[in-house]
C-alpha cells in the first residue's frame, strides 16, 4: 500500500492546508507509526485511507488493486451504549450481512483475544475506559482486516493501562500480521509498537524523516533498556527539528 | 356550517335593541332585563323582535336584551342559577332541572304544538315515522331528549343508530340515508330553498307534545319582581299578535343577526309555524296560554319514560300567567298575586 503525493486542503476562510504531498510506502504486514505535533494532519491521513475524508490531490493505491479490508480504531471507543459488548463487537459483521451464528462465533473469539472474556454480556456503561477500548479494538479486528488504522486509541487512558493495551496490540499484530498504521502522540508507544516511526512537520504536514526501530524483542521489559531510550531520543530529536522547521 | 359558527359564539353575542324606538329611553327609568334564548334568532322568537320594533317593550317599561343561544349554550342552567332573569327552555327541560334543584316557573308557551320533527330525504324509503323508527337507519338527534325515549317505547327502535345532533346540515345533505331531528318549519324550509327535497315527520303526531320554546323565570325572581314578569308576558303576547299579523319586518331584523337563514326562508318559516302557535286555546285566551292539564300530561309521560322520577304534586306551581285582560301595560305598583 502506498500513498503518493497525498494532499489535503480544507476549504474555509482562509483555507487550511492540512497535508502537503505525503509519500509513504507501507509494506504488507508492517507496523508503522505516524508522529508529529498537534494539527499536523496525521489523523487526516488515516481518515483519507478509511474513506472518511477525500484527498484534495494525489492519492493512494493498494496492491493488489483491490481495496483491502480496513479496521479502524477511533480516539474514543464509540460503542453503541444500548448494545451489549458482544453485539457491539459484531456490528461490522452485522452490517455486512453475516448470519447470526457465525457472527456470534467470530465476535466471541475476538472478545477472548482482547481478554474481555467474561464481559461479553455486559453493557458498555458498566465497563472502565480501558475495557471499552479493548472492545473497540476487538470490533476493529473482528472482520479480519488487512489494514488496521489506529488514531491515538489509548490516548485518554492512564499510563499503566496504556502499557498493557500496547502489549495486547503487539501480541495481536504478531499473530495476525495485518498492516498497521498508528497515529500517536506518545513517542515511547510509537517505539514500542512500530517497526518504523515516521515524523511529520507542523501544519501543513510533510514527512520530515523517519526512524527505523529494530528492537530484537518487544517485551514489557524492553521499555527499561538503553536501546529503547536511545530510539526514543532519536525520534525526539527529529521531532524537535520538525517543530523548529517552519511554524 | 354557518349556523354552527353563529351558535358557538352565541353566548358572547348580546343583542341589545335598546334605544331602537326611543332615544330618551334610559332617562325614563325603564327596567333592564335580559332574555337568554336557546337558539339563534329565528321565527320561533319572532314575538320578541316584533315587540321591540313596535315599541311594545318600551310601553311596558322594559329595556330588553335578547341573548342568542345555541347547542352548546346551557340556557336552562343559566336561568336557573339566576345569571339571567328570563330565558327560553323546552317543557321537558323545565321539569328535569326542577328535579335537580332548580326552581323554574313557566310564563309563556310559544308553541302549543311541538315543532320537533324528524326529516328524511324525499327519495328515502320510509313513508311514516313508525317505519323509520323500526328500521336500522342512522338518525342524528339529541338522544337523551324525552321524545326519543318516547318513540323508542312506542315503536321499538332497537336497530336504530342514534348519532349526535349538530347544527350543520352538511352531513345530512351529503348522506341520502341520514335522518335528522329538526323543527318542522326551519331546516326543511332552508333545504327546500336549496333544492334539497325532504319529507318531514312531526313528532307530535305520535302522541308526545310538550310545550316548546317556553319563556321561564325562577320562582325567586317572580316573587321579587312580579310586575316585571307580568309586563314581560303582556308585552310578549302583543308582540306575537303583531308578528302573526305581519312577520316581515321582524324577520328582516332577525336575518341580519342570523346569516344561516335568509329573509325569504324566515318568511316561509313564519307562515308554516302559525298552526303550531295558534289554536283554539290561544284564540280563546291568549297567545302562549298554558293549562295545568297539559303540564300534567307531560309530567306523567316523562315519568313513565323514566325521565322524571316524581310527578310534581302541585302542577300549578310550575307555571304562572297573568289573566288575559289584565289592565294597562305599565307595571302596577302593588304586587299582582300569582294566578
Amino acid at each position, binding site marked *: 500500500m502506498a500513498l503518493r503525493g497525498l494532499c489535503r486542503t480544507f476549504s474555509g476562510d482562509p483555507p487550511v492546508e492540512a497535508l502537503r504531498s505525503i509519500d509513504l510506502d507501507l509494506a504488507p504486514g508492517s507496523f508503522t507509526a505516524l508522529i508529529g505535533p498537534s494539527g499536523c494532519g496525521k489523523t487526516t491521513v488515516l481518515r483519507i485511507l478509511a474513506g472518511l475524508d477525500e484527498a484534495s490531490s494525489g492519492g493512494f493505491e493498494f496492491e493488489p488493486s483491490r481495496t483491502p479490508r480496513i479496521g479502524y480504531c477511533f480516539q474514543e471507543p464509540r460503542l453503541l*451504549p*444500548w448494545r451489549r459488548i458482544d453485539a457491539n463487537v459484531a456490528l461490522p459483521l452485522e452490517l455486512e450481512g453475516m448470519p447470526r451464528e457465525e457472527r456470534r462465533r467470530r465476535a466471541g473469539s475476538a472478545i477472548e483475544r482482547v481478554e474481555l472474556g467474561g464481559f461479553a454480556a455486559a453493557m458498555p456503561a458498566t465497563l472502565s475506559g480501558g475495557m471499552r477500548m479493548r472492545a473497540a479494538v476487538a470490533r476493529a479486528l473482528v472482520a479480519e482486516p488487512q489494514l488496521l488504522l489506529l488514531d491515538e486509541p489509548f490516548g485518554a487512558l492512564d499510563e499503566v493501562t496504556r502499557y498493557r493495551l500496547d502489549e495486547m496490540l503487539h501480541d495481536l499484530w504478531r499473530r495476525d500480521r495485518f498492516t498497521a498504521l498508528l497515529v500517536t502522540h506518545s513517542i515511547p508507544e510509537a517505539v514500542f509498537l512500530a517497526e518504523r516511526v515516521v515524523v511529520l512537520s507542523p501544519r501543513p504536514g510533510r514527512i520530515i524523516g523517519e526512524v527505523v526501530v529494530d528492537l530484537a524483542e518487544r517485551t514489557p521489559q524492553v521499555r527499561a533498556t538503553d536501546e529503547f531510550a536511545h530510539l526514543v531520543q532519536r525520534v525526539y530529536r527529529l521531532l524537535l527539528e520538525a517543530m523548529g522547521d517552519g511554524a | 356550517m354557518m349556523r354552527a359558527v353563529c351558535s358557538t359564539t352565541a353566548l358572547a353575542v348580546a343583542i341589545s335593541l335598546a334605544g331602537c324606538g326611543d332615544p330618551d329611553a334610559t332617562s325614563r327609568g325603564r327596567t333592564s332585563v335580559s332574555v337568554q334564548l336557546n337558539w339563534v334568532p329565528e321565527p320561533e322568537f319572532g314575538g320578541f323582535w316584533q315587540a321591540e320594533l313596535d315599541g311594545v317593550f318600551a310601553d311596558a317599561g322594559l329595556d330588553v336584551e335578547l341573548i342568542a343561544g345555541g347547542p352548546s349554550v346551557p340556557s336552562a*342552567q343559566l336561568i336557573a*342559577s339566576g345569571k339571567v332573569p328570563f330565558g327560553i327552555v323546552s317543557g321537558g327541560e323545565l321539569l328535569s332541572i326542577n328535579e335537580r334543584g*332548580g326552581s323554574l316557573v313557566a310564563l309563556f308557551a310559544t308553541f302549543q304544538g311541538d315543532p320537533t320533527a324528524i326529516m328524511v330525504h324525499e327519495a328515502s324509503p320510509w313513508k311514516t315515522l313508525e317505519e323509520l323508527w323500526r328500521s336500522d337507519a342512522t338518525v342524528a338527534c339529541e338522544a*337523551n331528549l324525552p321524545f326519543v325515549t318516547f318513540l323508542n317505547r312506542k315503536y321499538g327502535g332497537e336497530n336504530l343508530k*342514534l348519532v*349526535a345532533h*349538530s347544527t350543520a346540515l352538511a*352531513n345530512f345533505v351529503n348522506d341520502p340515508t341520514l335522518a335528522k331531528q329538526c323543527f318542522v318549519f326551519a331546516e326543511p324550509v332552508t333545504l327546500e330553498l336549496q333544492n334539497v327535497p325532504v319529507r318531514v315527520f312531526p313528532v307530535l303526531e305520535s302522541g308526545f307534545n310538550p310545550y316548546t320554546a317556553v319563556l321561564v323565570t325562577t320562582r325567586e325572581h317572580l316573587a321579587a319582581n312580579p310586575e316585571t314578569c307580568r309586563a314581560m308576558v303582556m308585552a310578549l303576547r302583543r308582540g306575537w299578535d303583531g308578528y302573526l299579523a305581519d312577520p316581515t319586518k321582524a324577520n328582516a331584523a332577525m336575518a341580519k343577526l342570523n346569516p344561516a337563514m335568509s329573509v325569504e326562508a324566515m318568511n316561509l318559516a313564519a307562515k308554516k309555524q302559525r298552526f303550531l302557535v295558534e289554536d283554539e286555546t290561544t284564540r280563546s285566551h291568549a297567545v302562549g296560554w298554558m293549562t295545568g292539564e297539559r303540564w300534567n300530561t307531560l309530567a306523567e309521560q316523562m315519568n313513565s319514560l323514566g325521565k322524571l322520577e316524581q310527578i310534581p304534586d302541585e302542577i300549578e306551581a310550575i307555571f304562572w300567567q297573568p289573566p288575559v285582560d289584565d289592565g294597562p301595560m305599565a307595571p302596577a305598583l302593588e304586587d299582582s298575586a300569582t294566578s
Partner: protein
Amino acid sequence: MRRAVPRIAVAAPPIAVVAATVLLWWLAVRTFEIPEYLLPTPGAVLEAVWVERDRLAWGMLATAIGASGGFAIAAALGIAIGSILGLSRFLERGFYPLTLLLQMVPLVALAPILVVWLGYGQRAVIASAAIVALFPVIANTLGGMRSVDRDLEELFSLHRAGLASRWWRLRLPASLPSIVTGLRIAAGLAVIGAIVGEFVSAYAGDRAPLGMVIVSAMREYRTDLMFGAIGLAAIVGFALFGIVNFGGWLLLRRWHASARSSSD
C-alpha cells in the same frame, strides 16, 4: 446507612391531597347549598357511577379502544415522519411548519368535519385521537434524530452502512428516550382527542363511549353522571399513560439513565 423510603411515605402525599379535595368539595356543596344541576356531591357522583356501572364500563371500553387506535396511528406515523424529517435540514425546514399546524388547529372545530369525511362511529374518533396525539411524537422523534452522536454516525459511515440499516441500528435506538417522552405525552392527548371526537361522532345507546355519555348527561342536567363519566375518562387516560410508561421502561431499562428513575 439510610433506609429505603417505605412505600407508604411515597403514596401518602397524593392520597392526602385527593382526600382533602374531595372533602372540600363535599363541604362546599353543603355549605353553599349548591343545586344538583350545577354541582353534585361526591356521594352523588359515586352513586351515579355505581348505578350506571354497566353503561360506564362499556363506555370506558369504547373510549379506550378509540384512544388506543388513535395513539397507535399517531405513534407509527409520528416516528416515521420524524425520522424522515430528520434526514435533511431541507425537509425539516420545509415540512416542520406544516406539522406545527397540526398542533394549532382546534380539534373542536375539526371534529365535525372529520364526521363529514369519515362518517359516524369509531373511525372519526380514532382520527381525532390520532390528530391530537401526532405532533408530540413527531417533534420528539425529530429531536432525538437530530441529536444522534456524530461520532457514532461516522462509525456507521466507516462501515458504509445504508440508510435503512443506519435507521434501524443507530438512529432509532439512539432516539428512543426522546421518542418515549413523546409517546407519554401522546397517550394523554389521545384520550382527549377521542373524547372530543366522540362528542360529535359517536353512536348513542347502552354501549356509547364516554364522550357521548358526558354530552348526554350534560344535556339532561345529570351532573352526577357527567362528573362520574369525566372521572372515568381521566382513569382511561391514566391507564393508557401507564401502559406507555411501562413500555418505555421495558425498552430502556437496560441502558438509559432516565428509565432507571421511575418517572411519572
